[in-house]
């Protein structure tokens, strides 16, 4: 029921966001139409960070309480996070080509985001390499906690080091009000989608656990 409501909210927000992006929001003077990618790239980056925040909290709670539900939450969020981080890097690269003339540059924020993507991959690798499932979950939780160090680095990259990114333009009031509204709606759209996908992924993982348990139960009969 919750998921159906979220699905309808996501669909309504999606239509509103697309309408705002392509009809209402003005075309930026310097970059032109390509600036529209900004409404995708920023939410992708935000969800990459949000997913890892959930992984971080879930990992701490798993290590503290040893409850499978926290591991399932972290695992599910990490999977969704790796997808959004990939999309942040891809959309960033597509924007970089017309804006900076290159597909990729070792700019501080881009590099830190790539590091985040690699941390996500490490999270899954340590889990799959572990001999026991619980040990894999513990190792992954440690990666989830240590890897969180990269989040403030990404956020503060433009302030700490001089890069190509324009800095905290959004928070300094440097954005046209219509553009800001469009960005907020876009962020809301993808955040709702994230919640929906995460709930679906958790439910899937719970079913996988249930199947494993049932198979173990049916073992003595075979």
């Amino acid at each position, binding site marked *: 029921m919750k998921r159906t409501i979220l699905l309808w909210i996501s669909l309504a927000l999606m239509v509103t966001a697309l309408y705002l992006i392509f009809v209402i929001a003005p075309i930026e003077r310097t970059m*032109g*139409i*390509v600036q*529209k*990618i900004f409404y*995708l*790239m920023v939410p*992708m980056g935000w969800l990459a960070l949000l997913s890892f925040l959930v992984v971080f909290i879930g990992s701490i709670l798993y290590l503290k309480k040893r409850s499978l539900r926290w591991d399932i939450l972290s695992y599910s969020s990490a999977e969704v996070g790796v*997808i959004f981080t*990939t*999309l942040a890097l*891809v*959309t960033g690269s*597509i*924007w970089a*080509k*017309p804006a900076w003339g290159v597909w990729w540059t070792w700019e501080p924020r881009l590099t830190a985001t790539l590091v985040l993507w690699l941390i996500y991959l490490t999270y899954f690798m340590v889990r799959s390499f572990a001999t026991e499932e619980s040990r894999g979950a513990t190792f992954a939780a440690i990666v989830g906690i240590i890897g969180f160090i990269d989040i403030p680095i990404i956020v503060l990259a433009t302030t700490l080091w001089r890069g190509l990114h324009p800095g905290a333009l959004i928070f300094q009031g440097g954005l046209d009000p219509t553009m800001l509204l469009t960005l907020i709606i876009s962020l809301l759209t993808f955040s709702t*989608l994230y919640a*929906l*996908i995460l709930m*679906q*992924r958790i*439910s*899937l993982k719970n*079913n*996988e656990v*249930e*199947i494993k348990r*049932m*198979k173990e*139960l*049916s073992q003595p*009969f075979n």
Partner: protein
Amino acid sequence: MENVSYVFVAFAIVWAVVFGYILLLLNRQRRLQQEIDLLKQRLEDRKSGD
């Protein structure tokens, strides 16, 4: 207006990946539910057979 293609590609990739992933999850969920139903049935059959 030559940059329109970049915008189109970016939006197409994001929506294709997001919807593709949702469809993949729904498909996997359906298969797992079928497996759960089958296992439940099997367990019940074994219990009633004892």
